[in-house]
């Protein structure tokens, strides 16, 4: 074994009775890209937090270039040349790029010499082919650019081993290729990269080797070249998963259930976010909405569910103009269900028990209440039934929902929003942060709802998901729908042009 690079031997970590990591071995030679695959809760993030000094392992050792090291704190990790890029970017948005890079940099004395650091930073950025303005405030930058700031932050600290935790989860699809290219450049410069992901195509595109974690142990360690992605998926979840195309029948009905005409709305900053959006959804049809995040998708979902006041246009449900209805009326009398993007903030009350989160949509109705009184016992029974049928894994329905994994939380939200038998189901980014198994469960639920004849609006930035479940795909750009096409006609060029804002006529 060559000594250059990183070696983990028999790393274990226990939280209470839970074995998060159990004897993990891994070797990462210098100058390679190493992917770590695993479902949520497989121990990927725990392992990386150990490497970065945020947790101490209960057993095993870490060798860097052949020498055993104890990594007691993030500061120690940085001294050893380990830099970490967290899933949620660790940037202070109100500060400039160079201020973020300099933050916490040791040995600065008492004067903050931003101009000098900005010069060095620009030179460093150029040497990796990154183009960046050091004095720009971070909140003004697109996500892909912010991620480069994070990478520059660790490079500026002379990191040789860079850990990236789910780096593409914050990126728009169009930014992913540029990001992967950046990784290749870093590898060419001799940096070692550990790349945590559950997106198989990205792993296949950029990694040299992959370690697959399952329930805290290494289930496979293999070279990426010559391993088909479906094989990796199987090792990750321990069974076969449907990867792309899901079985579905053609739409059952020609009845137009939802008719949106010229819908307009402003965002929280007062900018025109929806500039006149029109579309129809038939009963039993899934209309996908694709596009780069922040092009009016959130405002569209909110305007449909009544959370945001529309400025103009009409929303019709089965021929009834419901534009003036409030949230309560829309949800209960009209039967509009909503799976929001922000599970933690909007979809759930994290500190309430599971059964109360289950009743939170329809708590004023039977069986959750009778008259003015809530009925906890029957709510528990309903929740237990849902938990069984939607395969939500938990200890008890009295557990705070905070302690469930993201996938299980999402399954409960889906149960709640679907079991009330809605007419229109609005879904926003349902698979964000979920692993392959949970994504499959979500899509099965969506397709079952379609069979039932619900009109479904499926908003996502994951083009692949949209193409695999939707009957038609609307592409949004800058508050308008630039085109609505069938998934079979959706070539990358065509979708790319629509996402980029070229309207259909101009494409053709």
């Amino acid at each position, binding site marked *: 074994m060559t000594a250059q690079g990183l070696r983990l031997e028999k790393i274990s970590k226990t939280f209470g009775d839970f074995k998060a990591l159990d004897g993990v071995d891994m070797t990462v030679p210098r100058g390679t890209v190493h992917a770590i695959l695993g479902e949520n809760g497989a121990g990927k993030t725990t392992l990386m937090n150990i490497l970065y000094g945020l947790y101490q392992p209960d057993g095993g050792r870490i060798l860097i270039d052949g020498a055993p090291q104890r990594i007691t704190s*993030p500061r120690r990790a940085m001294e050893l040349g380990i830099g970490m890029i967290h899933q949620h970017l*660790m940037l*202070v948005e109100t500060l400039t790029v160079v201020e973020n890079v300099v*933050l916490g940099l040791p040995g600065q004395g008492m004067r903050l010499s931003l101009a000098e650091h900005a010069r060095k930073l620009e030179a460093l950025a150029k040497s990796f082919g990154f183009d960046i303005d050091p004095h720009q405030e971070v909140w003004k930058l697109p996500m892909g650019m912010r991620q480069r700031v994070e990478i520059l932050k660790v490079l500026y600290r002379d990191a040789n081993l860079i850990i990236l935790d789910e780096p593409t989860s914050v990126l728009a699809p169009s930014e992913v290729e540029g990001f992967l290219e950046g990784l290749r450049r870093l590898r060419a410069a001799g940096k070692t990269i550990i790349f945590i992901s559950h997106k198989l195509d990205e792993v296949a595109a950029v990694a040299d080797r992959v370690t697959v974690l399952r329930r805290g142990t290494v289930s496979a360690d293999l070279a990426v070249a010559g391993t088909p992605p479906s094989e990796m998926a199987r090792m990750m979840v321990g069974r076969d998963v449907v990867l792309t195309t899901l079985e579905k029948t053609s739409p059952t009905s020609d009845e137009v259930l939802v008719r949106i005409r010229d819908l307009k709305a402003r965002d929280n900053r007062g900018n025109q976010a929806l500039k006149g959006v029109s579309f129809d959804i038939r009963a039993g049809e899934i209309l996908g909405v694709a596009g780069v995040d922040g092009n009016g998708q959130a405002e569209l979902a909110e305007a449909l569910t009544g959370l945001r006041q529309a400025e103009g246009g009409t929303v019709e449900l089965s021929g009834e103009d419901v534009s003036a209805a409030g949230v309560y009326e829309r949800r209960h009398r009209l039967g509009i269900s909503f799976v929001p993007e922000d599970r933690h903030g909007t979809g759930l009350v994290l500190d309430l028990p599971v059964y109360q989160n289950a009743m939170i949509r329809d708590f004023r109705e039977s069986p959750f209440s009778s008259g003015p009184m809530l009925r906890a016992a029957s709510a528990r029974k309903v929740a237990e039934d849902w938990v069984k049928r939607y395969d939500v894994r938990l200890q008890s329905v009295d557990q705070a929902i905070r302690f469930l994994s993201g996938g299980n939380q999402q399954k409960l939200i889906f149960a709640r929003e679907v079991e009330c038998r809605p007419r229109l189901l609005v879904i926003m980014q349902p698979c964000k942060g979920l692993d392959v198994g949970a994504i499959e469960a979500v899509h099965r639920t969506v397709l079952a709802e379609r069979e039932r004849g619900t009109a479904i609006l499926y908003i996502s930035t994951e083009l692949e998901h949209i193409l695999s479940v939707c009957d038609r795909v609307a592409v949004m750009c800058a508050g308008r729908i630039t085109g609505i096409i069938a998934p079979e006609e959706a070539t990358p060029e065509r979708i790319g042009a629509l996402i980029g804002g070229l309207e259909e006529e101009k494409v053709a």
Partner: protein
Amino acid sequence: MSWAGDVSSLVDFFSTVLRLSTPIVFAALGGVLAERAGVFNVSLEGCILGGAFGAATGAYLLGTPVGGLVFGILFAAAIGCVLAGLAVGLGINQLVTGIAINILVLGLTSYLARLILGADATSTLPGFAPVAIPLLSSIPLIGPVLFNQDPLAYLMYLAVPLSYWFLYRTPWGLNVRAIGDYPVAADTVGVSVPGVRAICVITSCVLGGLGGCYLVLCQVFVFTENMSAGKGWIALAAVILGRWNPALVFVACIFFAFSEALQLRLQFNNPDVPYQLFSMVPFLASFVALVAFAGRVRPPAAIGTKYVRGGK
């Protein structure tokens, strides 16, 4: 009225503004520091009162204003340690902790003042005398107002640019600003969030305490119960009006002091109008100012929340 009379009346007026603003400026700078680090320091009122009490006790026991200053700073620092321990260390709600401290300090200082100062409570304590700065103090109007002041007022002049320099021109200030907005970013690059916050809170309380020292050692030379009289709350309003920027906060403090001086003058000149009407002026002014200028303020994002590593 003669021209000379006019000038002396103006000097008088602006001296009053400066006199009224000094304790608020100290406290508000303290507020900026704590809030920039993400901690509400609602206890500024208590810090002013505690500083005033400490100053009176020190001056009484040691017989010198410097002794008073040292005691005042120590007492305020002790309040800061309590706030830091409870709000930063234990993560108890910052507002509740701050309010509890205010009530505690009000009772404690009243009690201790009777115990320590006793019958001497109304006798004049030793204080700082004004020091005229040569040349500068002979500039007409400006000189007598700005440069014939006591040492603590000069310290206030220094404290404003110093706070600004600290926040925007030093790495420590960068740490503070980062922690107030997104503490986890600072934590991941090895800056101790509780450490920085504790230091900021204690310094913040000491600054509030300096305001109290000024009241006792430079203005009235006695300690009276609840002598802070809402100055800490006005300082908090000035922090918001000045958008957490020391320079603007200074301007906001001057504005509040100006309206207070104006109402005193109006009261004095219009004895036939009920004085309660004029007493409202500063509060109306602060309402109007907050509504007019503070509509789009963006406070430090992480303010009021305790920081838990790995918390969701």
